């Protein structure tokens, strides 16, 4: 996806907008999109009736996306982050939070476009986390670019509005065409928008929770929303969860993130013995290999 041929205007100073779609939903991919053009084209771009994608109807967004794809003065690209990747990163031992994932995605897009040979001089981007810190991080990584990190950048700068259309349309299509990994019977595709408050999403989640596996991998297991559905499913204790870890951490939205270690109650000592064998009290050979002597079944 994205523009592949480097246009002639790319050697002139260019501006780029970056925006995201699908950050809040409990399921499906998160998409980062970018749109870029020559600085000299920005005035014309402002007349193309791009607006913040959230204020547009779906058909209008689709239409605008098709138009901008055929516009030779505009380049674009997307980074689609799979829900499996989001869950895995946010639930690994050294957790990566959603802000970090977002920053890396945006920087990945900038890097890709620069490597294509586009002379980026200005990048406009909606803030994720603290705007000042984000700007410093971006400027450090790409010293040749002037960054404008702002709240509501998608409604302030047409180039970001364009990026927001690219991201939103890509996210909607990805969800619409999503092929579920799971092959169990009665798997439905009526996910709704994916937002935790959407009644259709709620009922889909309720109908697709599984006693052992939790949810299909389309779902972001790291979202606090999952907790509500996981109350009565089989408890899973992980070796990698720190035993002294307490409480759930907060993500940027102030929502509680799921920690499976908090499901159910066991004391640390009992829990560690339950999960892992130790070889305690045996010769070092066995200790090193965690081989326990089983005296009874």
């Amino acid at each position, binding site marked *: 996806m994205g523009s592949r041929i480097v246009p002639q205007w790319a050697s002139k100073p260019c501006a780029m907008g970056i925006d995201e779609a699908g950050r809040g939903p409990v399921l499906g991919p998160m998409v980062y999109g970018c749109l870029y053009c020559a600085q000299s084209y920005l005035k014309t771009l402002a007349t193309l009736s791009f607006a913040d994608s959230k204020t547009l109807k779906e058909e209008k967004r689709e239409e605008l996306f098709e138009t901008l794809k055929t516009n030779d003065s505009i380049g674009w690209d997307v980074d689609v982050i799979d829900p499996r990747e989001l869950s895995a990163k946010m639930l690994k031992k050294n957790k990566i939070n959603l802000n970090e994932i977002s920053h890396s995605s945006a920087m990945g897009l900038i890097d890709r476009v620069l490597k294509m040979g586009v002379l980026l001089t200005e990048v406009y981007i909606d803030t994720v986390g603290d705007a000042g810190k984000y700007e410093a991080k971006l400027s450090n990584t790409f010293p040749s670019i002037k960054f404008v990190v702002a709240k509501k950048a998608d409604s302030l700068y047409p180039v970001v509005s364009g990026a927001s259309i690219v991201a939103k349309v890509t996210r909607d299509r990805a969800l619409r065409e999503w092929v579920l990994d799971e092959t*169990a019977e009665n798997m439905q595709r009526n996910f709704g928008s994916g937002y935790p408050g959407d009644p259709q999403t709620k009922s889909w989640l309720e109908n697709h929770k599984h006693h052992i596996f939790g949810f299909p991998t389309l779902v972001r297991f790291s979202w606090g929303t999952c907790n509500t559905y996981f109350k009565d499913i089989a408890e899973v204790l992980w070796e990698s969860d720190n035993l002294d870890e307490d409480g759930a951490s907060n993500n940027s939205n102030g929502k509680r993130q799921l920690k499976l270690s908090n499901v159910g109650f066991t004391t640390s000592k009992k829990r560690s013995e339950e999960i892992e064998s130790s070889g305690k009290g045996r010769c070092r050979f066995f200790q090193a290999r965690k081989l326990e002597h089983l005296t009874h079944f």
Partner: protein
Amino acid sequence: MKVFGKILGRKGGKHRVWIVGGKMEKTIIDLKGKREDLSGRVHQLPCCVKHNGPATVSHYFKPKPSDGGDEGLPLQQAHFRGRLLQGTTLHLPHGYSGFVLAKTSPHKWQTSATFHDITYWNHHYAPSPNDDFSRAFHWLTLAQALHNPVTPEELASSSATL
């Protein structure tokens, strides 16, 4: 890393029935009987699932071959409860079988299935021969050396070197 209800036993006529425990309480493990072969379907996860019973594993747990692994192990990846698992399949050494046992009476166990490989999974890091699970297999080589009968000739030659 407890493998509940699974033990590794030695093949061969003499060891078909194991008797464990001493004194008054004897447990009999019958390694004959029904023998469904679970090879390729035995997974060791880095977690404890508090559930005992059947599950629709093949519909939800979809391991895929993956790249990486500096030790030349063929790696796989899968997801479970949102976490990335990286695994590899270990074949049990020649002469060994895996057994899935079911308790039939207080001190009697029956074989319900056997297996010849185990796929073990790490949470978010690639398996390597240095993992505890791989290293546990060292014991099998050692056990063999310890328990092999010593012939009078071997005894004589080792006494001579002492």
